[in-house]
């Protein structure tokens, strides 16, 4: 149980009770979560919310319902914390899906979209993460490699050895902060591969053992848990290398790991890994490895559009190497998948990675 979260929830309630005692309508302050109040923090190298604040009021026809709902989520979360029970945001929704009273033809929540948005509101207002409120999200990422973890869960303490997870790897939980502790960490670096297929390939080669690294796949876009784990590993001074497709989706996955997303900008550095490097696949690789030239695919409109957009983002176009890559996409209108690296030999991927890391051939 996160004491900090519990204290913050209590303080929020106390402030409202004080207001009511003074004859004022209850309010709480939060940070404006709009695109205009989302800034790129050059110092840290991630997206975060700006300083614009707003006050949420109960005595406002437009806000009364969401205000009441937000407080309901807060109270329910505090109950979870007290009982030391976790649930998903869907579970929370069902806990709060009830009628407001016999004579009121209205439910506290009618759709999960309502509660999802307000959970984010509460995270912003209290400057805490939903994981601190015992709210879980779906898991997706997997890890294998030299690391042991102590998992304090359901009354048991379990030591997990990530080298002994067989073919499936360790599934990254939604919360890697509470009740989760890295015990031993023997890896030299972290390799993030976009696709599960490639992860399985490398896992079969025992690539993590040979290279003494942690092999992670987010299986596409990273979950909050995966991003938090990467953040923690970066904090342990491990280099983070990413191997993605050379297309719009791959770039987006990489940049979300690196700078965070607009949507979760309020979480700032906690969910961003500015230290991450992009190993590949790059447009330059096509020139360097002859066989890749035959394995390119025509870039789709969405890829081209994404490349153009990225050239416009200040947190990307400040890197000359990325500008060069993106311009090449626009010029050649080609893209290439990471799976193409297995085109010549299945084991080529490992060689490719080693060469890149050894020669520091990565993009910022």
């Amino acid at each position, binding site marked *: 149980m996160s004491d900090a979260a519990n204290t913050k929830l209590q303080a929020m309630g106390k402030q409202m009770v004080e207001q*009511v005692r003074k*004859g004022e309508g209850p309010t709480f302050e939060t940070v404006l979560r709009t695109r205009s109040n989302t800034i790129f923090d050059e110092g840290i190298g991630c997206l975060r919310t700006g300083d614009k604040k707003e006050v949420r009021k109960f005595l406002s026809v437009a806000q009364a319902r969401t205000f009441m709902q937000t407080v*309901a989520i807060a109270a329910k979360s505090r109950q979870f914390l007290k009982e030391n029970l976790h649930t998903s945001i869907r579970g929370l929704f069902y806990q709060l899906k009830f009628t407001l009273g016999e004579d009121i033809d209205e439910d506290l929540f009618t759709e999960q979209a309502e509660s999802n948005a307000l959970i984010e509101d509460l995270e912003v207002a209290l400057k805490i993460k939903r994981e601190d409120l015992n709210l879980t999200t779906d898991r997706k990422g997997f890890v294998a490699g030299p690391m042991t973890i102590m998992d304090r869960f359901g009354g048991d303490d379990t030591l997990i050895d990530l080298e002994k997870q067989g073919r499936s790897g360790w599934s990254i939980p939604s919360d890697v902060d509470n009740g989760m502790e890295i015990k031993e960490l023997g890896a030299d670096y972290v390799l993030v591969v976009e696709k599960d297929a490639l992860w399985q390939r490398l896992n079969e080669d025992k690539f993590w053992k040979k290279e003494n690294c942690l092999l992670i796949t987010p299986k596409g876009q990273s979950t909050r848990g995966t991003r938090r784990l990467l953040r923690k590993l970066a904090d342990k001074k491990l280099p983070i290398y990413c191997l993605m497709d050379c297309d719009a989706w791959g770039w987006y996955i990489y940049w979300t790991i690196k700078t965070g997303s607009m949507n979760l900008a309020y979480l700032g550095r906690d969910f961003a890994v500015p230290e991450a490097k992009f190993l590949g696949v790059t447009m330059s690789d096509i020139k360097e490895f002859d066989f890749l030239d035959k394995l390119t695919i025509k870039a789709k409109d969405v890829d081209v559009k994404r490349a153009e957009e990225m050239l416009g983002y200040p947190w990307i176009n400040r890197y000359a190497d990325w500008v060069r890559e993106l311009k090449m996409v626009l010029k050649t209108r080609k893209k290439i998948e990471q799976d193409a690296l297995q085109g010549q030999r299945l084991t080529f991927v490992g060689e490719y990675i080693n060469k890149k890391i050894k020669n520091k051939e990565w993009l910022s």
Partner: protein
Amino acid sequence: MADDDIFKQFKEHSIAEFFKKNRQMLGFSGKVRSMTIIVHEIVTNSLDACEEAGVLPDLFVQVEELDKEKEHYRLTIKDNGPGIPKSHLGKALGQMLAGTKFHRYIQQRGQQGIGAAACTMFSYLTTGQPTKAISCHKGRKITASIGIDFKQNKPVLDVVEEADALNETGLSFISEFKDVRYERSNYGVYEYLRRTALANPHCAITLIEPNNERTVFPRSVQVNPARPSEIKPHPLGIGTHDLLEFARHNKESRRLSSFLQETFSRVSAGKIDELRSLLPDMDLNKNPQDMTWEEAEAMVKAFASVKWIAPATDSLVPIGREQVEISFRNIFNPEVLVVTERSPKVYRGGIPFMVEVGIAYGGGVAAAGKKGEVMRFANRVPLLFDSGGCAITETIKTMDWKRYDVKDFEEEPIAVLVNLISVHVPYTSAGKQAVSPEEDVMDEIKFAIMEASRGVQKYLSGKRKAHEIANKKKVVSRYIQQLSGDMASLTGEKKAEIEKALTKIIEDKYAQDEMEAEETAEKDPEPDTGIGKTDEGGEEE
């Protein structure tokens, strides 16, 4: 002899022809309209008769369909008036231009009437049947059939039965018609009677329609309206034809100058001198009977150049604010009702008139499915036809209703009653169903409607605001329970205490809003309409 025969032939022919040719002019155009006009003629006669005799009118109207294909109907209209003596019965119902209202300058319904005789004639011409009349007058009950002798333009009265009337009194008019149609439309008998009842709350009307449906428009005021006083016409309200008619019927005066002073109001010796100087070629000493059309025309023109004292306006009798209110409540039971009470005005420089406006909104108006209903009246008589060219309709159409919080006049539950009262209502045509767009009259109608609309607006905006505040309060209040509980659970404080405090905060906040809203509503200034005060007539010179 042969010449005489031809003349007789011509005469017989001419009256029927006259009627046929002038049916349109008399209002008998269109089958539905003809039916309504017949009811109108008989009903107005009945109402005038009852009021003159000081009896609260009780009317019974029945329309029976005798043959649907041939559009053959029987109409029965019965009143509780004084009835008509045997000696006058034929004349009253069978001779055109023989009414008692001719040459009387007084605000009354029948002013425009073509009379019951035209109905009798219409019946006779379309069915060949005489009209049946049952008159109970001063204890005698006379049952008669009335036909028309076209040769002599004379009624043919055939008394069927004569008996003691016991306590019965009144006239029953029973007549058959073809070439008419009954419809429950905006132009039909039902609507005509409904509006008649609205503008005449002192009368009770029972209607039985061809499908045997019975409707009672009950009496809502237990006293007859004041009788308008008979006044001499004012020179400014006179046309060439009127002047000639007056001159021809004049018996007392032998000289034009004295005839003018005797017949018209505000004509003094001084004004005669003025007229004399305006008309140097006219002999004002001549016999009025000898006045020519040209002279009459010149005289009317001269009237317009003289500065007259405005006519007395006490001859006008409105329905009255209270009566309209009672009546409206009775028939519509609206949510909002505003009735104006305005002083008389004059138009064309000398004809007194008055405008009464009642606006009903919501409630029963909505329940009856009425939207943007315009009810026009002239001297309490409903005007159902020719709304297109009517000054009243035109004025309502050009109103900026949005200014009065009526977003879409045609789509809102609003009913507007406009009653134009005058001894001389300016009709657009002989059909007498539309008011001509006289500038003074239109302005006054506009101002009266604006005045009533402001009342409606005040209510609507006040209501809307109160509604909004109540809604806000409701929206916020419904969450008190849940919020108090959650605040208590977050802090460990008592839910009841938080709930009580929160409820009070909300009560206080919205009570204050309500007070502020009321204050603004009261501060709403009545914009100056800019109309001058009535030019009240002074004493006779």
